[in-house]
């Protein structure tokens, strides 16, 4: 469904990604792990069309999408839920969700029906739909951000650090929701620092270090990989001798 082949990207004189390749199959959930500054966000932004790539190729459902505007990419069903949420703080939850469907020129009644559908997934937002998004708690805002992304009817949903800054209990909730979304047949690309939470959810993963993929494999393989355990799962191995 998504094929990223050998892409290079950066800002100004600095190169952030060098020769990154990865793929996500239809309906699959895949994670990209990595420390701060490893290039995770640049990777996900390049896929979503927000950062230009300098080399390589990005294909979505067989067609090249690099070089297309972010708006075009959203319309094809590849939707990003960005780090830091980027909600519209002085608009109501309802308006934020409405704008999620912006790329599909559909009627108001259809949008309203879709909002009801999305609110089924986030019952806590139901009574807050007229509240300004900016006045919600961090967890609620993350729900709105995911809900807004769902309004665009994604076939592949990219999530950039959805657990960032949330309390452990909320991280669980967010991950559960992401799992539910995946169950509905929507492929997930999850960029996370919280490797433990991410690996419980996905089937495969990649580890990004200094702009390159250094490890890839199934979730089990990654969970048992010593380097991943030491660097991202916080497991300290006993000294051998």
């Amino acid at each position, binding site marked *: 469904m998504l094929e990223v082949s050998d892409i290079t990207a950066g800002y100004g004189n600095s190169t952030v990604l060098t020769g990154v390749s990865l793929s996500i199959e239809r309906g699959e959930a895949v994670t990209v792990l990595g420390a701060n500054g490893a290039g995770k966000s640049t990777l996900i932004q390049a896929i*979503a069309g*927000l950062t230009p790539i300098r080399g390589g190729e990005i294909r979505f459902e067989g067609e090249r999408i690099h070089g297309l*505007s*972010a*708006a075009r990419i*959203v*319309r094809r069903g590849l939707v*990003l839920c*960005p780090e830091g*949420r*980027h*909600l*519209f*703080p*002085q*608009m109501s939850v309802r*308006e934020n969700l*409405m*704008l*999620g469907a*912006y*790329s599909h020129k559909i009627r108001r009644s259809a949008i309203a029906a879709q909002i009801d559908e999305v609110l089924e997934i986030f019952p806590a937002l139901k009574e807050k739909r007229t509240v300004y998004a*900016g006045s919600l708690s961090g967890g609620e805002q993350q729900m709105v951000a995911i809900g*807004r992304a769902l309004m*665009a009817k994604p076939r592949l949903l990219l999530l950039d650090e959805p657990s960032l800054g949330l309390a452990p209990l909320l991280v669980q909730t967010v991950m559960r929701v992401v799992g539910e979304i995946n169950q509905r047949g929507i492929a997930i690309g999850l960029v996370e620092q919280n490797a433990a939470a991410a690996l419980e959810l996905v089937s495969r993963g990649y580890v990004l270090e200094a702009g390159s993929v250094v490890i890839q494999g199934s979730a089990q393989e990654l969970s048992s990989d010593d380097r991943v355990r030491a660097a991202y799962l916080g497991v300290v191995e006993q000294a051998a001798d």
Partner: protein
Amino acid sequence: MQVLANGLALGAIYALVASCLLLIFGILEIPDFALGGRIMVGGYAGYFVAENLGLHYWIAVVAAALAAGLLGVVSELAVYRWLRNTPRPLLSGFIGALVLLTATEITVQLLFTADFRKLPSPYESQILDFAGIRMTEQRLLAGVVALVLIAALHAYLRGTRGGRAMRATLEDRRGAEIVGISPAKTALIAMLLGSCMAGVAGALLGPMYLVYPTMGDAILIKGLIVIVLAGMRSSLGAISAALLLGIAESFGASYLSVGFSDAYAFIFLIIALMVRPNGLFTKSVLVR
């Protein structure tokens, strides 16, 4: 009462110009001083249609909107769009806008000389007398049209898909791009709307304050003062500040001296900034 009414009519025009400036600055992130040039081009377009073609004043107003709107769209496509991709968009935009303003004024001066011209309007000679307040129909009309346009702009921003996209861009540019709103398209629409309204402002002012190449400068500065008074953001605050400024100017001109009428705006600004340095109508904002 007389002075108050005059001030309100003038203030409504300031509010219109300030609304245009705020919209364009918010979306383009460029301080569009060249809007003053487009106000003036609106005045000239109106003058040409009403005086040279002899058509009705309302047609002149529409022509003013079209001419200024066209110039705005061309400015965006030919200048601002490129300046936004430079390493320092705010600075290059600032300089670019000043260049555009000067270029517009010089071009018009070369074409039409610097003579003062009076945009003919049938409403300028009609004097209304209502409860002791005497004003020309033109002045009343100018105030009312300005307020109607502001209301229409707000209705567009609140109630339509395009307007919502524009507010989204104002609130979170990246967020807007992520949901599929094209920044280039939004900028073009903001420029078109803001410029058309500026053109109308020129045609409304033309019969009262005459048309000449630098006619946009004073009104532009008033618009900027209004924005500073209102604290840079709030559009409702800008409207209130504009009306207050109009009233202050009107009182100054009536009771102190007409000769200094453009100075009152600055005196008002200085006093207001001493009392409320964050703007007249700002609340303390919670920063997250």
